[in-house]
């Protein structure tokens, strides 16, 4: 019965809910101010006050939706994270889309404003209502997935991953690696090469070449799982491999058999029992990895147990891994001698017989060192396999500076890449670990399997529908979006098409589209313009700060009671700073702002990779335009901030406020300075 009524009732209008916690930040006048702000808007059908909205008050949201016919909620309270679960549950219960709410963080934005708090609270709520008015329902959509995974690799990591994926009940195509004893459900394509990769998470199409033949496979996800390639550093030290100069791998082979070392010494005419020294070189010309140190120290310990003199020549002893310092101490107790070279590099000479000699000045004792060892061992560099470059290009994966297909960003946590549904593990993402650090390998495997289970565990994937909508009449297929999308989410047919399972909703494309053909739900040009133009009465100077929701929430919460944010500050949430186009910057001035600021992540920290950079370039462009029309470039600023820099945010905002007050009102702001526009 209830659902029938639900179906026939036409829902329309805004329900405003004020949490009484919010009332406490300012004077008693605050609530009256909020009520007045809500009543200004005819779309507001309900205005109600609730206690303790984030806890006990949650129920009130569902009751309000059940008892009235509003189709959206605007909540004046504290931060969104605390309220989101309650809001989405209430919307779900009434069959409304989950995006139909706006949170006005009155509590954090009015902290410490005292007498000015009611006016500020009213402004915050008015803007939230303006945003609420422009909400359009976003229905979640379902995408049928292909429950098959493509694993690309060359060795044991790929084989293990294939087995793990098969254990999840997924079909697996293992391409490249040789492997034995694979579970059923794994199609092994040894020697296969990826030649094309299209589509989106849940439904990719991979084209592979095996023995000159082309194969196509539909897959729901792909894991790049090549192991490292190991290269001995002979060249770096100016040495040539010989009987007396070997790589670490060769030394390990010599040590693997009881007679290995003796045979090698005998080959050089040296007595097997003699005190023939071994010199281990590591990280003298490049930065060694603890994984190398671990192997060197194990070898050193074995050599010392055979009573051979062992010298370790390094820049730094890399012991930053579990158990490694203890192993190093054990080696030292066993008689390993370490020479550290911070400022100099020892001289290495090799004679005609291939025997090497190390000459240096000891940096601590300032005494000459002259070692003519029986064996010089060079360490090895861990490099990406050459195949990775091609795979990354075909899959449109961003590379780090060392050529691994995962950007050096703290947000590419463990195995994620810039493309949804494409994962990188271990040697493919430059995550070397020592053998003793078993948890490191386990964490990558678990992260990859958990992601695959979440993506392909069910027959279909539920998508939020946050991708931009393409206005086909405007799109000219100019390729701007295709070129800029950091997530490979744009496909160009006759027009641009956004792949919903690939899109992360950052809006970099929307901000740059020269035809305004791409509009993000909840953050369209019109919605942002309406929010900027919401009539408010706050004292000048008016400042607008654009920033991503993540950062603005945390930054305003961190501001605390001791230092208030400027009363004239309007925070405008966008999915990413990269969403802020020139249009928005100029709109803000047109709407009466005297200063506009874009808060972005630090370079290298942007989830959309280039979002911050685009934002900065647009602010610079806006500055040039403002200078040209005589408004002054200093009215627009670009700042990089992390969510935990609340103190810095507060200071920057106040500095800007002071600066703007000194500049005087913007000529564009004057018509709005008194009261409200119609």
């Amino acid at each position, binding site marked *: 019965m209830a659902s029938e009524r639900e179906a026939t009732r036409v829902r329309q209008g805004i329900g405003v809910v004020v949490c009484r916690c919010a009332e406490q930040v300012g004077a008693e006048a605050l609530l009256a101010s909020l009520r007045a702000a809500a009543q200004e808007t005819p779309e507001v059908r309900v205005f109600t006050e609730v206690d303790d909205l984030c806890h006990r008050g949650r129920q009130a949201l569902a009751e309000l939706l059940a008892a009235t016919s509003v189709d959206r909620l605007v909540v004046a309270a504290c931060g969104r994270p605390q309220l989101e679960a309650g809001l989405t549950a209430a919307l779900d219960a009434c069959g409304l889309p989950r995006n139909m709410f706006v949170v006005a963080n009155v509590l954090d934005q009015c902290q410490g404003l005292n007498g000015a708090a009611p006016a500020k609270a009213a402004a915050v709520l008015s803007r939230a209502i303006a945003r609420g008015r422009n909400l359009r329902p976003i229905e979640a959509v379902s995408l049928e997935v292909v429950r098959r995974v493509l694993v690309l690799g060359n060795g044991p990591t790929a084989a293990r991953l294939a087995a793990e994926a098969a254990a999840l009940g997924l079909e697996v195509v293992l391409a490249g690696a040789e492997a034995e004893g694979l579970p059923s459900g794994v199609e092994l394509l040894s020697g296969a090469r990826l030649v094309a990769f299209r589509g989106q998470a849940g439904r990719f199409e991979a084209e592979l070449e095996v023995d000159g033949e082309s194969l196509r496979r539909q897959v729901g996800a792909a894991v790049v799982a090549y192991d490292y390639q190991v290269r001995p550093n002979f060249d770096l030290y100016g040495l040539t491999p010989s009987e007396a100069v070997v790589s670490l791998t060769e030394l390990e082979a010599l040590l693997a058999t009881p007679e290995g070392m003796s045979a090698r010494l005998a080959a050089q005419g040296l007595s097997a029992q003699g005190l023939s020294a071994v010199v281990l070189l590591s990280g003298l010309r490049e930065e060694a990895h603890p994984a190398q140190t671990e192997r060197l120290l194990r070898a050193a310990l074995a050599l010392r147990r055979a009573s051979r003199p062992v010298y370790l020549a390094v820049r730094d002893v890399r012991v930053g891994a579990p158990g490694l310092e203890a192993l190093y101490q054990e080696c030292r107790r066993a008689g390993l001698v370490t020479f550290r070279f*911070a400022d100099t590099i020892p001289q290495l000479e090799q004679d005609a017989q291939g025997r090497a000699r190390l000459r240096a000045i000891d940096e601590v004792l300032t005494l000459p060192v002259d070692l003519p060892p029986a064996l010089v061992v060079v360490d090895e560099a861990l490099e990406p396999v050459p195949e990775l470059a091609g795979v990354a290009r075909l899959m449109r994966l961003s590379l780090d500076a060392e050529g*691994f297909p995962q950007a050096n960003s*703290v947000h590419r946590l463990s195995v994620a890449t810039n493309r949804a549904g494409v994962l990188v593990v271990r040697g493919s993402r430059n995550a070397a670990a020592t053998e003793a650090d078993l948890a490191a390998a386990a964490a990558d495997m678990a992260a990859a399997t*958990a992601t695959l289970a979440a993506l392909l565990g069910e027959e279909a994937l539920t998508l939020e529908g946050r991708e931009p909508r393409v206005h086909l009449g405007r799109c000219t297929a100019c390729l701007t979006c295709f070129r800029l999308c950091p997530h490979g989410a744009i496909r160009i047919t006759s027009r641009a098409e956004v792949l919903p399972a690939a899109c992360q909703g950052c809006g970099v494309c929307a901000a740059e589209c020269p035809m305004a053909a791409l509009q993000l739900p909840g953050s369209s040009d019109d919605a942002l313009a309406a929010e900027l133009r919401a009539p408010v009465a706050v004292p000048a100077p008016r400042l607008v700060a654009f920033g991503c929701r993540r950062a603005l929430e945390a930054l305003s*919460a961190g501001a605390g009671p001791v230092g208030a944010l400027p009363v004239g500050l309007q925070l405008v949430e966008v999915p990413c700073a990269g969403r802020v186009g020139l249009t928005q910057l100029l709109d803000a001035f047109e709407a009466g702002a005297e200063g506009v600021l874009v808060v972005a992540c630090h370079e290298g920290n942007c989830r959309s990779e280039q979002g911050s950079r685009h934002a900065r370039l647009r602010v610079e462009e806006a500055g040039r335009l403002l200078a040209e029309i005589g408004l002054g470039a200093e009215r627009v600023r670009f700042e990089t901030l992390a969510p935990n820099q609340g103190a810095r945010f507060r200071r920057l905002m106040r500095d800007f406020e002071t600066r703007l007050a000194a500049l005087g009102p913007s000529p564009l702001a004057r018509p709005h300075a008194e009261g409200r526009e119609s």
Partner: protein
Amino acid sequence: MSGSPRVLVIGGGVAGLSAAAALGRLNLAATLVEKAPTLGGFASRLACKAANECQRCSACLLEERLGEVARQGVEVILPAEVVELRRDSGCFRAAIERRALPLDPARCTGCGQCAAVCPAGAITQAEGRLFALDATGCRHAQSGSDDGCTRCQEACPTGAIDLAARPQTTEKEFAAVIAATGFTPFDARGKPHFGYGALPDVMTALEVEQALRRHDRLVRPSDGRQPARVAFIQCVGSRDREHPYCSRVCCAYALRLAEALRARQGAQSTLFYIDIQRFGREFAHTLEGLRHTVRLVRMMPGDVQPGPEGQLLLSYMDGRSHDVVDEEFDLVVLSVGMAPQPANGELASRLGLALDAAGFLAASAGGVAAHGIFVAGAATGPMGIARACAEGERAAWEAARWVGGSRG
């Protein structure tokens, strides 16, 4: 087991938060027990160290996890401890004791009205918008009865203060347990020759982080002036006889802090070290850049003494001249290591876990410490934030597999 399975996460630092959030994504109910009055652990004291560019310190990952734990509706109990845990027909029964919390951070809006009326100055601002009540200064607590001063309670508009609060113990049933109990920073007073505790301008790196986070500026505690010359002393409480391990994070945070101080306030840093440890991606490139801006001295200083004009004198053997030199600095930062929690022994015996030689929680490769018990984060040994997050997520996945398996 009655109802849907629930996983107990012990510890509300980044590892525990990551585990709890990941459990939510895996559609498993989670209860997070934290012994401090707020979530976040040590990461909540760390500062963003970005200079012009992000330095990849990962401190910003905390905010995101806090948000996700709130969104996922994870049950959070704090300040609380698991005082008893026993196996009961395939699952765990835990007794969780919530300490008396006169000022509930979940209800505190940070309006400061309580602090304004407190006659003893016992209420101070904690992290962000929260306030905290110090029971040692509180007149109500000192009166020992419920009739003492209640001004703050009366002033609090949100009912966040309950001076008569008593500890509460609840019993709950869990299908699996994740222990993410973290580490304890080395107490720098254990190296008295560096003067920590005696000289105000000798700080721990953790205190520097906290100062930058709260005030966005680092000043000398003695006179409030910005330091121009900063010395970092590495391996304080690492790689010594009592701590036979590398703490793995100190070279990274010290060099990043040095760079942040240079870029933001023009301070020149000198780093005294044994070996620079590798950290982060693109390390060779990072270190090459830092070599130009941070002075690296491979020598452990002998001691730190007060200078005649408020500066600090750091004595060390100069590598070139072989003389002992006294160099002047405005501030000395001790890069304190990560030590095991002193309570690990008790926790291990309660959960039936093993400890490693240094006193951290031992685990198998998959983070399995015992049937149905998983460990994650710095409780198992020194590690940075990113790794702790990854381990928390791994533990959640392993726990979900365990719960799925044990339910058939």
